[in-house]
């Protein structure tokens, strides 16, 4: 993954603080920059000991496929959180985008490539509306995206008349495996992780996100056109949501109006577990990926251990609090 960002500068580089000597510096840096990576590895180790079924290619790939939708949503949300905003609408926007795809392709007979474009444009449009409300309407992002959460969900229901629409066959491969073992959603997740990392680390807009999230007024007085960059931020989040929606619908083989319900909270949790700060200026694509994987591994492991779905919710909530707590402590020392 690309070079350092603010995540590394806020964490003190304490020499060999958590790791014994003799560890290559590259590995040490990866751990220092991604506090959650240790937690993920510990979780994997524990589950491998407890359940013989956990550490199999088949199961791990299954975990990856399950993580994919939340991860892709979370990359989009990472842009927003880094710029000190919040996006609650991504679950609804994902469902709406998938619905637009299925509806234009199945009911309206559009070619599939055009239907995919329509879905992406839908995501972009929702994001831009969020961006306009936040940047020009001066609404708090919480309120603007809460409104979009409702609007997008409602539009999906309107288009579908409340029932699922079949997903076009040519896209079914998106939900399947490549070479019998590699799920396509995992590939999509990794590709989007790379895109998010490049955007955050190497593009003007990405660096502007860190500046805006760190101190919006200082960014404005340094010549960054904050309003325009916020449109980019929320627009990107919308496009990532559309991609996540398409992946989800292909896994379900249909676009469902209630799909991805509540996923925005998982996406935010993934960002926070991965070390992003809700007060802005801090966050990494790699961290968010790890955060999404932690959530998926935990769900999968608890299933394998036959923990009831009710207790699973409790466990996941506890992990979110613990991760955030550990990160706070790590920054303080």
């Amino acid at each position, binding site marked *: 993954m690309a*070079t*350092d960002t*603010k995540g*590394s*500068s*806020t964490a*003190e580089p*304490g020499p060999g603080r958590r790791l014994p000597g003799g560890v290559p510096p590259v590995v040490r840096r990866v751990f220092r920059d991604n506090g959650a990576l240790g937690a993920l590895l510990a979780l994997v180790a524990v589950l491998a000991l407890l359940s013989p079924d956990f550490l199999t290619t088949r199961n791990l790939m299954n975990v990856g496929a399950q993580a994919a939708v939340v991860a892709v949503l979370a990359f989009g949300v990472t842009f927003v959180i880094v710029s000190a905003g919040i996006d609650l609408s991504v679950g609804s926007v994902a469902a709406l985008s998938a619905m637009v795809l299925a509806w234009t392709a199945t009911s309206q007979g559009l070619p599939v490539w055009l239907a995919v474009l329509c879905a992406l444009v839908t995501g972009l449009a929702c994001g831009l509306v969020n961006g306009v409300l936040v940047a020009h309407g001066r609404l708090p992002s919480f309120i603007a995206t809460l409104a979009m959460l409702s609007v997008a969900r409602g539009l999906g229901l309107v288009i579908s008349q409340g029932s699922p629409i079949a997903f076009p066959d040519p896209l079914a491969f998106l939900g399947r495996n490549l070479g019998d073992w590699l799920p396509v959603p995992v590939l999509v997740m990794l590709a989007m992780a790379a895109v998010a990392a490049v955007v955050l*680390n*190497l*593009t*003007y*807009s*990405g*660096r*502007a996100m*860190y*500046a805006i999230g*760190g*101190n919006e*007024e*200082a*960014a*404005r*007085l*340094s*010549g*960054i*056109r904050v309003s325009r960059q916020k449109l980019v931020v929320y627009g990107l989040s919308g496009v990532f949501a559309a991609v996540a929606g398409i992946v989800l619908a292909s896994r379900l083989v249909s676009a469902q109006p209630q799909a991805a319900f509540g996923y925005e909270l998982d996406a935010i949790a993934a960002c926070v577990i991965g070390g992003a700060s809700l007060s802005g*200026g*801090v966050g990494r694509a790699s961290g968010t990926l790890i955060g999404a994987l932690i959530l998926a591994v935990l769900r999968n492991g608890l299933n394998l251990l036959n923990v009831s779905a009710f207790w699973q919710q409790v466990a996941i909530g506890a992990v979110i609090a613990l991760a955030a707590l550990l990160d706070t402590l790590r920054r303080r*020392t």
Partner: protein
Amino acid sequence: MTPSDRRSSAPIVRAEGVTKAFPGVVALDGVDFEVRAGEVHVLLGENGAGKSTLIRLLAGAHRPDRGRIVVDGRPVRVHGAQDAERLGIATIHQEFHLVPDLTVAENLFLGRPPRRFGLVDRARMEADAADLLARVGVNVSPRARLRELGVAHRQMVEIAKALSVRARVLVMDEPTAVLTGGEVERLFAIVRRLRADGVGVVFITHKLEEVAQLGDRVTVLRDGRSVARVPAGTDRDELVRLMVGRSIEAQYPRERGPVDADGPPLLRVRGLRRAGAFDGVGFDVRGGEVVGLAGLVGAGRTEVVRAVFGADAYDHGSVQVRGAPLPGHDVAASLAAGVGFVPEDRKGQGLVLGASVGENLGLVTLRRASRGGLVDRAGQRRAAAAMAARLGVRMAGLDQPARTLSGGNQQKVAIGKWLLAGSRLLILDEPTRGVDVGAKVEIYRLVNELTAAGHGVLMVSSDLPEVLGMSDRVLVMCRGRLAGELAGDAATQDAVMALAVGSARPADLAR
């Protein structure tokens, strides 16, 4: 007891051999310090010398690693603000601890509002607040929201709050940094009255002329150690020498160079007006000169320079850079035209504190360093390293967060990002506020360097000796208008103050 009895009496609060280390730095190293009843004890030192850490120990925000705090001869452990308050120690911090959305009265009684039947007694709270405000001599409604007040009034509210806890020791961290003229005089009057009442005052300042005006004793800190305890009447040069450990030849080393008199001026402002803020403001800045903008806090200086730069909008008037009109309220256009702005609120507006030194230095040039949307980060880093070296930024490395730099080094970064952008005209708003003596002179030298290279500097400053010492011409603002321009021998403190206060407030001329 008479005041003389008190003066000979034992100290109220004493720090004995206190040591405090933070990761990577020993902030205090075996420092002794004491405050007696009825004295003003001035604490001097460059930024990073350990003054803030020492008063945080007294206020209970930190605890010493070694050594102890003694109150009335008994060792105490101060855990937090409420403990300190119980012991009679009140602190007025540099960053105000006030809630902008609450009223003045609510802020004064924050956490301990007067209650009646378990409910907040608002009427009594507001009456008590009015009494406190009257004691401080500030004309502010107890019902006003703090957000609506200017920085000088907020300072007064903070002082009133400290009085409300009946402090026996009052610690004031650079209270005059944001005040001017009459406000400083009023503050001094309050401090003198407290001293007469037997309160021990710890007074931190960077303005050396205030030491003799107000202080009784001076303790000088340098690099975490107490290097001297001297009477307040000590010669100013001697104090500077003690603070920096070397003598500083000239406090204001302005070197006037040739002013670029040909062609259109670097900056031409005509008839600038914004309703309620300023009106009819016009002036030129030419290449090679430093133009100072003096006046009282609230005279509209900051508002004018922000409007000129495009940070805020204006209603009427025009701004031209080298003859070309500059669109209003457009920072990116100013950047493109070669105008840079270093705001007075360094932490709130000048820097992204959580970001590294390197990222802050590269902020303005971010757009220019982008090709097809991708930033040349290696190039940005090289340029930042070169600029940090040129400005002598003292740091662990480019990755150090800007938050952890001292005030002077933060200011160098805030200026450096504009120099990287090649700004021809720099607007500096209070460039040396909260900056220690050594770094101040470095900033002045930088200004000389820039004007020698043909750049222009427009400098707002509330520090009269500074604005007189460093400016080639001084513009004085009074209540939103330019009251006059002074140059050469005509530019004296008295002349500036006379223009700044207008004829309506002759009392302030006493300064």
